[in-house]
């Protein structure tokens, strides 16, 4: 029996479908552009005037028009949604908070990752093995997932997250480092209480610790 070789199917880099089905996806415009840049021969075989003229369909012209109109509407909606999402991503920031557990121990809390479609569980695992420490995903007070990493690895985490964002073409997103010193806060509170009892008067305005 002669050998059967696997057929090579070229897939769309935008929607992952075989490009002949891109027209039914939600990213048709971007798919088409991508194909033109990445596989011109296939692009011509699908979208050249000749190909389009030859693509006979048994559907009536009206039905055909209705299908394309519905698809166009859906695709325009999707484009608008993507644009909104992108704006939201660009406007948000990632916060890495360094918290002092005691004199020598710190943990860092990373929040604000949820809008970037980053797999947090996986990232926590990566951090755990990269920094040889413990890392987990927990829900914060706002019920949003955040990553908690044991150890003072704020700078390293920042560098890694910036690299991740860059890969997604989101280099404009800010990654902000914050310091939350329990000791300092406590001392400030104690001082305020002392001042209050000493004067018996109005407490001084609360001091910001960061």
């Amino acid at each position, binding site marked *: 029996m002669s050998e*059967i070789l*696997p057929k090579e199917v070229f897939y769309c880099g935008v929607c*992952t479908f075989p490009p002949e*089905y891109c027209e*039914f996806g939600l990213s048709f415009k971007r798919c088409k552009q991508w194909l033109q840049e990445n596989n011109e021969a296939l692009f011509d075989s699908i979208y050249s005037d000749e190909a389009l003229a030859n693509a006979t*369909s*048994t*559907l009536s012209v009206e039905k055909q028009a209705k299908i394309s109109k519905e698809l166009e509407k859906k695709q325009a909606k999707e484009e608008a949604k993507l644009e909104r999402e992108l704006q939201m991503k660009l406007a948000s920031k990632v916060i890495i908070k360094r918290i002092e557990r005691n004199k020598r121990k710190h943990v860092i809390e990373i929040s604000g990752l949820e809008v970037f479609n980053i797999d947090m569980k996986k990232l926590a695992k990566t951090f755990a093995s990269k920094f040889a420490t413990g890392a987990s995903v927990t829900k914060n007070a706002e019920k949003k997932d955040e990553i908690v990493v044991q150890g003072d690895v704020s700078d390293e985490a920042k560098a890694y997250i910036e690299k991740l964002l860059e890969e997604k073409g989101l280099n404009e997103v800010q990654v902000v480092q914050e310091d939350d010193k329990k000791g300092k806060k406590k001392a400030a509170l104690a001082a305020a209480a002392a001042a209050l009892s000493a004067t018996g008067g109005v407490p001084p305005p609360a001091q910001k610790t960061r």
Partner: protein
Amino acid sequence: MFKKFTKEDVHSRSNIKSSVQRGLKTKFVSQFEKLEPVIDDIIPKKSQAILIKCEDRIQLYSIDEEVVLFQHFDDLIPTLKVVHKYPDCFPRVQVDRGAIKFVLSGANIMCPGLTSAGAKLPEENLPVDTYVTVYAEGKENALAIGKLLMSTDDIKSINKNIGVELVHYLGDGLWNLTE
């Protein structure tokens, strides 16, 4: 079956024994006889298949980080990526252009979508419960895999109700699953 499937539905992964792997290949070929000459290309002799157990007793088998087939109850079914590579190894049906968008949203296929002018059914009868690859008018590659709920002769003669139960399609959770 994979409409709402996500990574969260994966319960466990494990290497399968080589004896189990041989059994899997034999069973897969017994279901799709035309796979015989290519089965060693799909699941090479020296490869290690990984069993991925999922919600709803769905079991996926992957080779080199790509899922090649899955099991539901007692049936073994290829993934679309495998169908695209070996299109001639599986029975096929074709829907008309009007049905494409419904198939791509995961809907079962009604008989008229399989019997209209743009559609195609094989001449010889395929019995009920056969797994078929689904093609479309004017397109080259398969867009879905389904299970016949009626024999193809019945689809032709009765021509109403659901003819094919959709199992796996372009853009569903299995298609989008990345290892």
